[in-house]
Protein backbone atom coordinates (compact mmCIF):
# COMPACT_ATOMS: atom_id res chain seq x y z
CA UNK A 1 0.00 0.00 0.00
CA UNK A 2 1.09 3.51 -0.65
CA UNK A 3 1.82 5.81 2.20
CA UNK A 4 2.69 9.43 1.81
CA UNK A 5 5.68 10.79 3.64
CA UNK A 6 4.87 13.51 6.11
CA UNK A 7 4.63 16.83 4.32
CA UNK A 8 5.11 15.37 0.85
CA UNK A 9 2.12 15.75 -1.45
CA UNK A 10 -0.12 12.69 -1.86
CA UNK A 11 -0.44 13.29 -5.59
CA UNK A 12 2.42 14.85 -7.54
CA UNK A 13 2.03 15.32 -11.28
CA UNK A 14 4.82 16.67 -13.48
CA UNK A 15 4.80 17.39 -17.21
CA UNK A 16 1.83 15.18 -18.04
CA UNK A 17 1.29 14.96 -21.80
CA UNK A 18 -1.37 13.04 -23.63
CA UNK A 19 -2.43 12.97 -27.27
CA UNK A 20 -5.14 11.17 -29.19
CA UNK A 21 -3.55 10.92 -32.59
CA UNK A 22 -2.70 14.44 -33.66
CA UNK A 23 -4.93 15.97 -31.01
CA UNK A 24 -2.86 16.93 -27.97
CA UNK A 25 -5.25 16.97 -25.00
CA UNK A 26 -2.76 17.47 -22.18
CA UNK A 27 0.16 19.79 -22.81
CA UNK A 28 2.21 19.43 -19.66
CA UNK A 29 0.26 19.40 -16.42
CA UNK A 30 2.05 20.07 -13.11
CA UNK A 31 -0.06 19.65 -9.99
CA UNK A 32 0.51 18.73 -6.35
CA UNK A 33 -2.31 17.63 -4.09
CA UNK A 34 -1.71 17.39 -0.35
CA UNK A 35 -3.29 14.66 1.74
CA UNK A 36 -6.65 15.86 2.99
CA UNK A 37 -6.90 18.57 0.35
CA UNK A 38 -9.99 19.09 -1.80
CA UNK A 39 -9.00 20.23 -5.28
CA UNK A 40 -11.66 21.23 -7.80
CA UNK A 41 -10.66 21.34 -11.45
CA UNK A 42 -12.72 23.73 -13.53
CA UNK A 43 -12.51 24.47 -17.19
CA UNK A 44 -14.42 24.41 -20.47
CA UNK A 45 -15.35 21.13 -22.14
CA UNK A 46 -12.43 19.63 -23.99
CA UNK A 47 -9.86 21.33 -21.78
CA UNK A 48 -8.49 17.93 -20.73
CA UNK A 49 -9.70 17.89 -17.11
CA UNK A 50 -11.32 14.45 -17.27
CA UNK A 51 -8.41 13.01 -19.20
CA UNK A 52 -6.00 14.26 -16.56
CA UNK A 53 -8.14 12.77 -13.79
CA UNK A 54 -8.17 9.43 -15.57
CA UNK A 55 -4.41 9.53 -16.01
CA UNK A 56 -4.03 9.59 -12.22
CA UNK A 57 -5.42 6.06 -11.82
CA UNK A 58 -4.11 4.95 -15.22
CA UNK A 59 -7.50 4.51 -16.86
CA UNK A 60 -5.83 6.57 -19.56
CA UNK A 61 -2.20 6.01 -20.36
CA UNK A 62 -0.22 9.23 -20.64
CA UNK A 63 2.45 9.69 -23.27
CA UNK A 64 4.96 11.68 -21.26
CA UNK A 65 5.39 12.90 -17.71
CA UNK A 66 4.88 11.40 -14.31
CA UNK A 67 2.12 11.20 -11.71
CA UNK A 68 3.02 9.83 -8.34
CA UNK A 69 0.50 8.73 -5.77
CA UNK A 70 2.32 8.49 -2.45
CA UNK A 71 5.49 6.66 -3.32
CA UNK A 72 4.35 4.88 -6.45
CA UNK A 73 3.14 5.61 -9.94
CA UNK A 74 -0.01 3.77 -10.96
CA UNK A 75 0.72 1.37 -13.80
CA UNK A 76 4.49 1.49 -13.36
CA UNK A 77 7.15 0.26 -11.03
CA UNK A 78 10.63 1.55 -10.31
CA UNK A 79 13.04 -1.37 -10.34
CA UNK A 80 16.80 -1.22 -10.62
CA UNK A 81 16.64 2.51 -11.27
CA UNK A 82 14.38 2.06 -14.33
CA UNK A 83 10.67 2.61 -14.64
CA UNK A 84 8.87 -0.48 -15.94
CA UNK A 85 5.28 -0.90 -17.03
CA UNK A 86 3.37 -3.18 -14.72
CA UNK A 87 1.10 -6.03 -15.75
CA UNK A 88 -2.65 -5.44 -15.72
CA UNK A 89 -2.88 -7.56 -12.59
CA UNK A 90 -0.28 -5.55 -10.66
CA UNK A 91 -1.83 -2.28 -11.84
CA UNK A 92 -5.19 -3.47 -10.56
CA UNK A 93 -3.68 -4.02 -7.13
CA UNK A 94 -2.20 -0.49 -7.09
CA UNK A 95 -5.51 1.03 -8.09
CA UNK A 96 -7.54 -0.61 -5.39
CA UNK A 97 -7.18 2.31 -2.92
CA UNK A 98 -8.42 4.98 -5.28
CA UNK A 99 -12.13 5.60 -5.25
CA UNK A 100 -13.73 6.89 -8.41
CA UNK A 101 -17.14 8.38 -9.14
CA UNK A 102 -18.22 8.59 -12.77
CA UNK A 103 -20.41 10.96 -14.70
CA UNK A 104 -22.75 8.10 -15.69
CA UNK A 105 -22.71 6.54 -12.15
CA UNK A 106 -21.83 3.12 -13.65
CA UNK A 107 -23.49 1.15 -10.88
CA UNK A 108 -23.59 -2.58 -11.57
CA UNK A 109 -27.19 -2.94 -12.80
CA UNK A 110 -27.45 -6.65 -11.98
CA UNK A 111 -26.66 -6.13 -8.31
CA UNK A 112 -28.65 -4.53 -5.53
CA UNK A 113 -27.41 -1.33 -3.95
CA UNK A 114 -25.86 -3.25 -1.08
CA UNK A 115 -24.20 -5.76 -3.39
CA UNK A 116 -22.79 -2.90 -5.44
CA UNK A 117 -21.14 -1.45 -2.37
CA UNK A 118 -19.70 -4.65 -0.86
CA UNK A 119 -18.40 -6.03 -4.18
CA UNK A 120 -14.91 -4.53 -3.99
CA UNK A 121 -14.44 -4.70 -0.20
CA UNK A 122 -15.22 -8.43 -0.16
CA UNK A 123 -13.80 -9.42 -3.53
CA UNK A 124 -10.66 -7.31 -3.65
CA UNK A 125 -9.89 -6.21 -0.11
CA UNK A 126 -10.77 -9.52 1.51
CA UNK A 127 -13.20 -8.14 4.06
CA UNK A 128 -15.60 -10.57 5.65
CA UNK A 129 -19.14 -10.29 4.27
CA UNK A 130 -20.50 -9.31 7.67
CA UNK A 131 -17.97 -6.55 8.17
CA UNK A 132 -18.42 -5.26 4.61
CA UNK A 133 -22.20 -5.24 4.91
CA UNK A 134 -22.04 -3.39 8.19
CA UNK A 135 -19.75 -0.74 6.74
CA UNK A 136 -21.90 -0.49 3.62
CA UNK A 137 -25.04 0.19 5.65
CA UNK A 138 -23.15 2.82 7.61
CA UNK A 139 -22.14 4.52 4.35
CA UNK A 140 -25.66 4.25 2.96
CA UNK A 141 -26.96 5.96 6.07
CA UNK A 142 -24.36 8.65 5.56
CA UNK A 143 -25.56 9.34 2.01
CA UNK A 144 -29.17 9.11 3.23
CA UNK A 145 -30.17 5.95 1.38
CA UNK A 146 -30.20 3.27 4.06
CA UNK A 147 -33.75 2.22 3.12
CA UNK A 148 -32.65 1.55 -0.49
CA UNK A 149 -30.13 -1.19 0.34
CA UNK A 150 -32.18 -3.91 -1.36
CA UNK A 151 -33.20 -1.85 -4.38
CA UNK A 152 -31.70 -2.27 -7.83
CA UNK A 153 -30.02 0.78 -9.40
CA UNK A 154 -32.77 0.94 -12.06
CA UNK A 155 -35.29 1.71 -9.35
CA UNK A 156 -33.42 4.79 -8.13
CA UNK A 157 -33.35 8.35 -9.42
CA UNK A 158 -30.14 9.64 -10.97
CA UNK A 159 -29.23 11.55 -7.83
CA UNK A 160 -29.79 8.51 -5.66
CA UNK A 161 -27.72 6.37 -8.00
CA UNK A 162 -24.85 8.82 -7.82
CA UNK A 163 -25.02 8.87 -4.01
CA UNK A 164 -24.84 5.07 -4.04
CA UNK A 165 -21.85 5.33 -6.39
CA UNK A 166 -20.19 7.64 -3.87
CA UNK A 167 -20.88 5.18 -1.05
CA UNK A 168 -19.48 2.41 -3.23
CA UNK A 169 -16.27 4.36 -3.76
CA UNK A 170 -15.99 5.15 -0.05
CA UNK A 171 -16.45 1.50 0.89
CA UNK A 172 -12.90 0.67 -0.16
CA UNK A 173 -11.61 3.23 2.38
CA UNK A 174 -9.87 5.17 -0.36
CA UNK A 175 -6.80 7.27 0.23
CA UNK A 176 -7.84 9.38 -2.76
CA UNK A 177 -11.26 10.05 -4.30
CA UNK A 178 -11.63 11.04 -7.93
CA UNK A 179 -14.89 12.62 -9.12
CA UNK A 180 -15.33 12.78 -12.88
CA UNK A 181 -18.12 15.32 -13.51
CA UNK A 182 -20.37 13.63 -10.93
CA UNK A 183 -23.36 15.92 -11.51
CA UNK A 184 -23.20 16.47 -15.27
CA UNK A 185 -25.62 13.65 -16.12
CA UNK A 186 -28.20 14.70 -13.52
CA UNK A 187 -31.43 16.64 -13.87
CA UNK A 188 -30.93 20.09 -12.32
CA UNK A 189 -33.18 19.39 -9.33
CA UNK A 190 -31.11 16.30 -8.43
CA UNK A 191 -27.73 18.03 -8.48
CA UNK A 192 -28.15 19.49 -5.00
CA UNK A 193 -28.43 16.19 -3.13
CA UNK A 194 -25.21 14.88 -4.69
CA UNK A 195 -23.32 18.11 -4.00
CA UNK A 196 -24.51 18.07 -0.39
CA UNK A 197 -23.09 14.57 0.01
CA UNK A 198 -19.81 15.68 -1.55
CA UNK A 199 -19.62 18.73 0.70
CA UNK A 200 -19.99 16.48 3.74
CA UNK A 201 -17.07 14.39 2.51
CA UNK A 202 -14.95 17.43 1.81
CA UNK A 203 -15.36 18.46 5.42
CA UNK A 204 -14.06 15.12 6.68
CA UNK A 205 -10.44 15.30 5.61
CA UNK A 206 -10.74 13.00 2.60
CA UNK A 207 -8.37 13.80 -0.27
CA UNK A 208 -10.56 14.64 -3.24
CA UNK A 209 -9.94 15.70 -6.81
CA UNK A 210 -13.17 16.85 -8.39
CA UNK A 211 -13.73 17.66 -12.05
CA UNK A 212 -16.96 19.59 -12.29
CA UNK A 213 -18.85 22.53 -13.73
CA UNK A 214 -20.43 23.39 -10.37
CA UNK A 215 -18.88 26.76 -9.54
CA UNK A 216 -20.88 26.96 -6.32
CA UNK A 217 -19.44 23.71 -5.08
CA UNK A 218 -15.93 24.86 -5.99
CA UNK A 219 -16.42 28.11 -4.12
CA UNK A 220 -17.55 26.69 -0.82
CA UNK A 221 -16.07 23.18 -0.66
CA UNK A 222 -12.69 23.42 -2.39
CA UNK A 223 -9.41 24.11 -0.65
CA UNK A 224 -7.98 24.95 -4.04
CA UNK A 225 -9.45 25.61 -7.46
CA UNK A 226 -7.50 24.71 -10.57
CA UNK A 227 -8.58 26.23 -13.86
CA UNK A 228 -7.67 24.30 -17.00
CA UNK A 229 -7.95 25.34 -20.60
CA UNK A 230 -6.66 23.73 -23.76
CA UNK A 231 -4.61 21.06 -21.99
CA UNK A 232 -2.87 23.39 -19.56
CA UNK A 233 -3.40 24.70 -16.04
CA UNK A 234 -3.98 28.41 -16.50
CA UNK A 235 -4.64 29.48 -12.99
CA UNK A 236 -4.92 27.99 -9.54
CA UNK A 237 -5.35 29.12 -5.98
CA UNK A 238 -7.90 29.64 -3.24
CA UNK A 239 -11.46 29.57 -4.52
CA UNK A 240 -12.15 33.15 -3.47
CA UNK A 241 -9.18 34.27 -5.59
CA UNK A 242 -9.72 32.13 -8.71
CA UNK A 243 -13.50 32.43 -8.74
CA UNK A 244 -13.93 35.75 -6.96
CA UNK A 245 -11.06 37.58 -8.61
CA UNK A 246 -9.64 35.69 -11.60
CA UNK A 247 -6.43 37.07 -13.07
CA UNK A 248 -6.49 35.33 -16.43
CA UNK A 249 -8.86 36.67 -19.10
CA UNK A 250 -9.82 33.12 -20.11
CA UNK A 251 -10.80 32.24 -16.56
CA UNK A 252 -12.82 35.42 -16.36
CA UNK A 253 -14.57 34.64 -19.65
CA UNK A 254 -15.39 31.10 -18.53
CA UNK A 255 -16.70 32.22 -15.15
CA UNK A 256 -18.73 35.09 -16.59
CA UNK A 257 -21.03 32.55 -18.19
CA UNK A 258 -21.90 31.13 -14.78
CA UNK A 259 -22.26 34.36 -12.89
CA UNK A 260 -25.90 34.91 -13.79
CA UNK A 261 -27.01 31.39 -12.89
CA UNK A 262 -27.78 31.05 -9.19
CA UNK A 263 -25.63 28.35 -7.64
CA UNK A 264 -26.98 25.63 -5.44
CA UNK A 265 -26.36 26.79 -1.92
CA UNK A 266 -25.36 24.46 0.91
CA UNK A 267 -28.16 23.58 3.24
Amino acid at each position, binding site marked *: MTTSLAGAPLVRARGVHKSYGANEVLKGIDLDVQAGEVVVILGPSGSGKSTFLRCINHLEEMDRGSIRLGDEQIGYELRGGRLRKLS*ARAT*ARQRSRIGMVFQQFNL*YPHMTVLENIV*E*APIGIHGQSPGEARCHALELLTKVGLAEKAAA*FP*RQLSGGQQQRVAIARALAIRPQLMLFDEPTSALDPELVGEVLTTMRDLAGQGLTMIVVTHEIGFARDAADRVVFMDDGRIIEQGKPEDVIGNPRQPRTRLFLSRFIQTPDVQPR
Partner: protein
Amino acid sequence: MTAGAVPAPPLDEFAEAGLRDVATARRPVAYGRGLLWVATLAVTLYLGWAVAHNKNFEWGVVAQWFTAPSILRGLSVTLGLTLVSMLIGVALGLLLAVARLSDNRLPRTLSGLYIWIFRGTPLLVQLIFWYNLSLLFPALSIGIPFGPTLATWKTNDLITPLTAAFAGLALNEAAYMAEIIRGGLLSVDRGQYETAEAFGMTRARALRRIIIPQAMRSIVPPTGNQLISMIKATSLVSVIAMGDLLYSVQAVYNRTFEVVPLLMVSVLWYLLITSILNAGQSAIERYYGRGQRSARPGKAGAVRSPVANVGEAR
Protein backbone atom coordinates in the same frame (compact mmCIF):
# COMPACT_ATOMS: atom_id res chain seq x y z
CA MET B 1 -41.10 12.21 -3.86
CA THR B 2 -44.25 11.65 -5.83
CA ALA B 3 -47.54 12.66 -4.36
CA GLY B 4 -49.90 9.95 -3.16
CA ALA B 5 -53.20 9.22 -4.86
CA VAL B 6 -55.05 12.47 -5.29
CA PRO B 7 -58.78 12.04 -4.71
CA ALA B 8 -60.61 12.54 -7.97
CA PRO B 9 -62.74 15.68 -8.05
CA PRO B 10 -66.48 15.07 -8.26
CA LEU B 11 -67.70 14.38 -11.79
CA ASP B 12 -69.83 17.46 -12.11
CA GLU B 13 -66.68 19.52 -11.66
CA PHE B 14 -65.37 18.07 -14.94
CA ALA B 15 -68.69 18.54 -16.63
CA GLU B 16 -68.84 22.16 -15.55
CA ALA B 17 -65.55 22.82 -17.30
CA GLY B 18 -66.79 21.02 -20.42
CA LEU B 19 -64.31 18.21 -19.73
CA ARG B 20 -64.74 14.44 -19.45
CA ASP B 21 -62.60 12.29 -17.15
CA VAL B 22 -60.82 9.60 -19.21
CA ALA B 23 -61.30 7.20 -16.30
CA THR B 24 -64.97 7.02 -17.26
CA ALA B 25 -64.23 6.18 -20.91
CA ARG B 26 -65.68 2.90 -22.23
CA ARG B 27 -63.58 0.57 -24.34
CA PRO B 28 -65.09 -0.34 -27.71
CA VAL B 29 -66.19 -3.98 -27.92
CA ALA B 30 -63.74 -5.78 -30.24
CA TYR B 31 -66.13 -7.96 -32.26
CA GLY B 32 -63.50 -8.60 -34.93
CA ARG B 33 -61.00 -9.92 -32.45
CA GLY B 34 -63.54 -12.23 -30.83
CA LEU B 35 -64.51 -13.62 -34.20
CA LEU B 36 -60.86 -14.30 -35.01
CA TRP B 37 -60.49 -16.21 -31.74
CA VAL B 38 -63.50 -18.38 -32.48
CA ALA B 39 -62.30 -19.14 -36.00
CA THR B 40 -58.79 -20.03 -34.86
CA LEU B 41 -60.09 -22.28 -32.10
CA ALA B 42 -62.40 -24.07 -34.51
CA VAL B 43 -59.63 -24.73 -37.03
CA THR B 44 -57.23 -25.90 -34.32
CA LEU B 45 -59.77 -28.27 -32.78
CA TYR B 46 -60.63 -29.69 -36.19
CA LEU B 47 -56.95 -30.27 -37.08
CA GLY B 48 -56.34 -31.95 -33.72
CA TRP B 49 -59.42 -34.14 -34.19
CA ALA B 50 -58.35 -35.03 -37.74
CA VAL B 51 -54.86 -36.09 -36.64
CA ALA B 52 -56.14 -38.03 -33.64
CA HIS B 53 -58.72 -39.97 -35.69
CA ASN B 54 -56.51 -40.62 -38.70
CA LYS B 55 -55.87 -44.38 -38.82
CA ASN B 56 -52.65 -43.86 -40.78
CA PHE B 57 -50.88 -42.36 -37.76
CA GLU B 58 -51.37 -45.69 -35.96
CA TRP B 59 -51.46 -44.12 -32.49
CA GLY B 60 -51.57 -47.58 -30.94
CA VAL B 61 -48.14 -48.35 -32.39
CA VAL B 62 -46.86 -44.97 -31.22
CA ALA B 63 -47.99 -45.72 -27.68
CA GLN B 64 -46.49 -49.18 -27.85
CA TRP B 65 -43.03 -47.93 -28.86
CA PHE B 66 -43.02 -44.61 -27.02
CA THR B 67 -41.30 -46.04 -23.94
CA ALA B 68 -39.72 -49.14 -25.47
CA PRO B 69 -36.26 -49.87 -24.00
CA SER B 70 -34.44 -49.42 -27.31
CA ILE B 71 -36.09 -46.04 -27.87
CA LEU B 72 -35.29 -44.90 -24.32
CA ARG B 73 -31.69 -45.99 -24.81
CA GLY B 74 -31.51 -43.89 -27.97
CA LEU B 75 -33.11 -41.01 -26.10
CA SER B 76 -30.50 -41.20 -23.35
CA VAL B 77 -27.71 -41.13 -25.97
CA THR B 78 -29.27 -38.06 -27.57
CA LEU B 79 -29.62 -36.30 -24.22
CA GLY B 80 -26.13 -37.28 -23.07
CA LEU B 81 -24.51 -36.16 -26.31
CA THR B 82 -26.42 -32.88 -26.24
CA LEU B 83 -25.59 -32.11 -22.62
CA VAL B 84 -21.89 -32.94 -22.75
CA SER B 85 -21.29 -31.37 -26.17
CA MET B 86 -23.12 -28.24 -25.11
CA LEU B 87 -21.17 -27.92 -21.86
CA ILE B 88 -17.84 -28.34 -23.63
CA GLY B 89 -19.04 -26.05 -26.41
CA VAL B 90 -20.02 -23.25 -24.00
CA ALA B 91 -16.82 -23.51 -21.96
CA LEU B 92 -14.59 -23.54 -25.02
CA GLY B 93 -16.73 -20.87 -26.66
CA LEU B 94 -16.22 -18.58 -23.66
CA LEU B 95 -12.46 -19.00 -23.90
CA LEU B 96 -12.56 -18.35 -27.65
CA ALA B 97 -14.72 -15.25 -27.17
CA VAL B 98 -12.40 -13.78 -24.54
CA ALA B 99 -9.40 -14.62 -26.73
CA ARG B 100 -11.11 -12.97 -29.70
CA LEU B 101 -11.52 -9.75 -27.69
CA SER B 102 -7.99 -9.80 -26.31
CA ASP B 103 -5.58 -6.90 -26.80
CA ASN B 104 -2.97 -9.48 -27.74
CA ARG B 105 -2.80 -10.31 -31.42
CA LEU B 106 -1.83 -13.99 -30.99
CA PRO B 107 -4.94 -15.25 -29.13
CA ARG B 108 -7.09 -12.97 -31.25
CA THR B 109 -5.78 -14.50 -34.48
CA LEU B 110 -5.89 -18.09 -33.24
CA SER B 111 -9.45 -17.70 -32.06
CA GLY B 112 -10.48 -16.13 -35.34
CA LEU B 113 -8.87 -18.98 -37.27
CA TYR B 114 -10.65 -21.59 -35.16
CA ILE B 115 -14.03 -19.96 -35.65
CA TRP B 116 -13.39 -19.57 -39.38
CA ILE B 117 -12.64 -23.28 -39.84
CA PHE B 118 -15.30 -24.78 -37.58
CA ARG B 119 -18.10 -22.49 -38.64
CA GLY B 120 -17.12 -22.63 -42.26
CA THR B 121 -17.37 -26.38 -42.81
CA PRO B 122 -20.45 -28.62 -42.51
CA LEU B 123 -20.95 -30.43 -39.22
CA LEU B 124 -21.54 -33.69 -41.06
CA VAL B 125 -18.13 -33.44 -42.71
CA GLN B 126 -16.50 -32.64 -39.37
CA LEU B 127 -18.10 -35.70 -37.74
CA ILE B 128 -16.92 -38.00 -40.54
CA PHE B 129 -13.50 -36.39 -40.38
CA TRP B 130 -13.11 -37.03 -36.63
CA TYR B 131 -14.42 -40.55 -37.01
CA ASN B 132 -11.87 -41.30 -39.72
CA LEU B 133 -8.99 -39.44 -38.11
CA SER B 134 -6.90 -42.59 -38.08
CA LEU B 135 -6.76 -42.53 -41.87
CA LEU B 136 -4.92 -39.20 -41.67
CA PHE B 137 -2.97 -39.70 -38.46
CA PRO B 138 -2.53 -43.36 -37.49
CA ALA B 139 -0.93 -42.33 -34.19
CA LEU B 140 -1.35 -39.30 -31.96
CA SER B 141 1.41 -38.11 -29.67
CA ILE B 142 2.28 -35.35 -27.26
CA GLY B 143 5.70 -33.82 -27.53
CA ILE B 144 7.70 -30.79 -28.56
CA PRO B 145 7.22 -29.89 -32.24
CA PHE B 146 10.16 -31.23 -34.23
CA GLY B 147 11.63 -32.42 -30.88
CA PRO B 148 11.26 -35.38 -28.59
CA THR B 149 7.94 -37.20 -28.16
CA LEU B 150 6.57 -37.66 -24.66
CA ALA B 151 3.58 -39.98 -25.18
CA THR B 152 1.94 -41.75 -28.11
CA TRP B 153 -1.46 -43.37 -28.65
CA LYS B 154 -2.91 -45.28 -31.55
CA THR B 155 -5.65 -43.13 -33.02
CA ASN B 156 -8.06 -46.05 -33.28
CA ASP B 157 -7.82 -46.56 -29.50
CA LEU B 158 -8.77 -42.96 -28.83
CA ILE B 159 -11.41 -42.35 -31.47
CA THR B 160 -14.53 -44.39 -30.85
CA PRO B 161 -17.90 -43.39 -32.28
CA LEU B 162 -18.57 -41.75 -28.91
CA THR B 163 -15.41 -39.62 -28.77
CA ALA B 164 -15.75 -38.74 -32.44
CA ALA B 165 -19.33 -37.61 -31.78
CA PHE B 166 -18.27 -35.52 -28.77
CA ALA B 167 -15.37 -33.99 -30.67
CA GLY B 168 -17.45 -33.20 -33.73
CA LEU B 169 -20.44 -31.73 -31.91
CA ALA B 170 -18.56 -29.89 -29.15
CA LEU B 171 -15.84 -28.33 -31.30
CA ASN B 172 -18.40 -27.17 -33.84
CA GLU B 173 -20.66 -25.80 -31.13
CA ALA B 174 -17.76 -23.91 -29.53
CA ALA B 175 -17.29 -21.88 -32.71
CA TYR B 176 -20.92 -20.75 -32.71
CA MET B 177 -21.00 -20.16 -28.97
CA ALA B 178 -17.82 -18.08 -29.23
CA GLU B 179 -19.57 -15.62 -31.52
CA ILE B 180 -22.72 -15.56 -29.38
CA ILE B 181 -20.71 -14.90 -26.22
CA ARG B 182 -18.54 -12.30 -27.93
CA GLY B 183 -21.68 -10.48 -29.02
CA GLY B 184 -22.92 -10.59 -25.43
CA LEU B 185 -19.67 -9.24 -24.02
CA LEU B 186 -19.70 -6.40 -26.55
CA SER B 187 -23.25 -5.50 -25.59
CA VAL B 188 -22.19 -4.54 -22.05
CA ASP B 189 -21.69 -0.83 -21.53
CA ARG B 190 -18.07 0.37 -21.81
CA GLY B 191 -18.46 2.15 -18.48
CA GLN B 192 -18.90 -1.16 -16.69
CA TYR B 193 -15.51 -2.40 -17.89
CA GLU B 194 -14.00 0.90 -16.86
CA THR B 195 -15.57 0.89 -13.41
CA ALA B 196 -14.39 -2.64 -12.72
CA GLU B 197 -10.93 -1.57 -13.83
CA ALA B 198 -10.96 1.58 -11.69
CA PHE B 199 -11.91 -0.45 -8.62
CA GLY B 200 -8.84 -2.61 -9.11
CA MET B 201 -10.50 -5.75 -10.41
CA THR B 202 -8.40 -8.09 -12.48
CA ARG B 203 -9.71 -8.82 -15.95
CA ALA B 204 -10.83 -12.30 -14.96
CA ARG B 205 -12.71 -11.04 -11.94
CA ALA B 206 -14.34 -8.21 -13.88
CA LEU B 207 -15.55 -10.71 -16.46
CA ARG B 208 -16.88 -13.13 -13.88
CA ARG B 209 -18.56 -10.71 -11.52
CA ILE B 210 -19.52 -7.71 -13.62
CA ILE B 211 -19.43 -8.31 -17.36
CA ILE B 212 -20.67 -11.88 -17.90
CA PRO B 213 -23.73 -11.58 -15.63
CA GLN B 214 -24.81 -8.57 -17.68
CA ALA B 215 -23.87 -10.18 -20.99
CA MET B 216 -26.01 -13.20 -20.10
CA ARG B 217 -29.15 -11.28 -20.95
CA SER B 218 -28.18 -11.25 -24.59
CA ILE B 219 -26.34 -14.60 -24.51
CA VAL B 220 -29.15 -16.79 -23.15
CA PRO B 221 -31.78 -16.53 -25.94
CA PRO B 222 -29.44 -17.50 -28.82
CA THR B 223 -27.89 -20.18 -26.62
CA GLY B 224 -31.34 -21.68 -26.13
CA ASN B 225 -31.58 -21.76 -29.91
CA GLN B 226 -28.21 -23.48 -30.11
CA LEU B 227 -29.22 -26.07 -27.53
CA ILE B 228 -32.37 -26.94 -29.44
CA SER B 229 -30.42 -27.11 -32.72
CA MET B 230 -27.92 -29.32 -30.95
CA ILE B 231 -30.58 -31.82 -29.86
CA LYS B 232 -31.61 -32.21 -33.45
CA ALA B 233 -28.02 -32.07 -34.77
CA THR B 234 -27.17 -35.10 -32.64
CA SER B 235 -29.22 -37.12 -35.11
CA LEU B 236 -26.31 -36.61 -37.53
CA VAL B 237 -24.16 -38.93 -35.44
CA SER B 238 -26.11 -41.87 -36.83
CA VAL B 239 -23.69 -41.63 -39.80
CA ILE B 240 -20.86 -42.68 -37.52
CA ALA B 241 -22.87 -45.53 -36.02
CA MET B 242 -23.94 -43.83 -32.78
CA GLY B 243 -27.31 -45.10 -31.61
CA ASP B 244 -29.15 -41.86 -30.84
CA LEU B 245 -32.93 -41.41 -30.73
CA LEU B 246 -33.47 -41.11 -34.47
CA TYR B 247 -31.09 -44.01 -35.14
CA SER B 248 -33.02 -46.26 -32.72
CA VAL B 249 -36.30 -45.31 -34.33
CA GLN B 250 -34.92 -46.08 -37.78
CA ALA B 251 -33.62 -49.42 -36.53
CA VAL B 252 -37.15 -50.34 -35.48
CA TYR B 253 -39.04 -49.22 -38.60
CA ASN B 254 -36.49 -50.88 -40.85
CA ARG B 255 -37.73 -54.11 -39.31
CA THR B 256 -41.44 -53.40 -38.83
CA PHE B 257 -42.04 -50.91 -41.70
CA GLU B 258 -44.16 -48.77 -39.35
CA VAL B 259 -42.37 -45.65 -40.56
CA VAL B 260 -44.84 -42.92 -39.69
CA PRO B 261 -45.77 -44.02 -36.16
CA LEU B 262 -42.12 -44.50 -35.23
CA LEU B 263 -41.16 -41.12 -36.62
CA MET B 264 -44.03 -39.73 -34.53
CA VAL B 265 -42.42 -41.34 -31.50
CA SER B 266 -39.19 -39.43 -32.12
CA VAL B 267 -41.05 -36.22 -33.01
CA LEU B 268 -43.02 -36.35 -29.76
CA TRP B 269 -39.85 -36.95 -27.76
CA TYR B 270 -38.03 -34.07 -29.48
CA LEU B 271 -41.00 -31.78 -28.84
CA LEU B 272 -41.20 -32.85 -25.20
CA ILE B 273 -37.51 -32.16 -24.58
CA THR B 274 -37.70 -28.84 -26.38
CA SER B 275 -40.68 -27.76 -24.27
CA ILE B 276 -38.80 -28.56 -21.08
CA LEU B 277 -35.79 -26.62 -22.34
CA ASN B 278 -38.00 -23.64 -23.24
CA ALA B 279 -39.30 -23.54 -19.68
CA GLY B 280 -35.74 -23.72 -18.37
CA GLN B 281 -34.66 -20.91 -20.68
CA SER B 282 -37.46 -18.66 -19.46
CA ALA B 283 -36.41 -19.26 -15.88
CA ILE B 284 -32.79 -18.41 -16.68
CA GLU B 285 -33.83 -15.28 -18.57
CA ARG B 286 -35.92 -14.14 -15.61
CA TYR B 287 -32.93 -14.65 -13.32
CA TYR B 288 -30.55 -12.58 -15.43
CA GLY B 289 -33.22 -9.99 -16.10
CA ARG B 290 -33.45 -9.00 -12.44
CA GLY B 291 -32.44 -5.43 -11.91
CA GLN B 292 -33.92 -4.59 -15.29
CA ARG B 293 -37.44 -4.16 -13.98
CA SER B 294 -38.71 -0.63 -13.88
CA ALA B 295 -39.52 1.17 -10.67
CA ARG B 296 -43.27 0.93 -11.17
CA PRO B 297 -44.58 -0.83 -8.09
CA GLY B 298 -46.58 -4.02 -8.23
CA LYS B 299 -45.70 -4.94 -11.80
CA ALA B 300 -43.24 -7.79 -11.76
CA GLY B 301 -42.48 -8.00 -15.45
CA ALA B 302 -43.11 -4.38 -16.20
CA VAL B 303 -40.66 -4.24 -19.08
CA ARG B 304 -43.12 -4.23 -21.93
CA SER B 305 -41.89 -5.77 -25.11
CA PRO B 306 -41.63 -3.25 -27.93
CA VAL B 307 -43.86 -5.46 -30.09
CA ALA B 308 -46.35 -6.21 -27.33
CA ASN B 309 -49.19 -4.30 -28.91
CA VAL B 310 -48.72 -5.37 -32.51
CA GLY B 311 -51.77 -7.62 -32.27
CA GLU B 312 -53.83 -4.81 -30.83
CA ALA B 313 -52.95 -2.34 -33.53
CA ARG B 314 -55.91 -1.29 -35.56
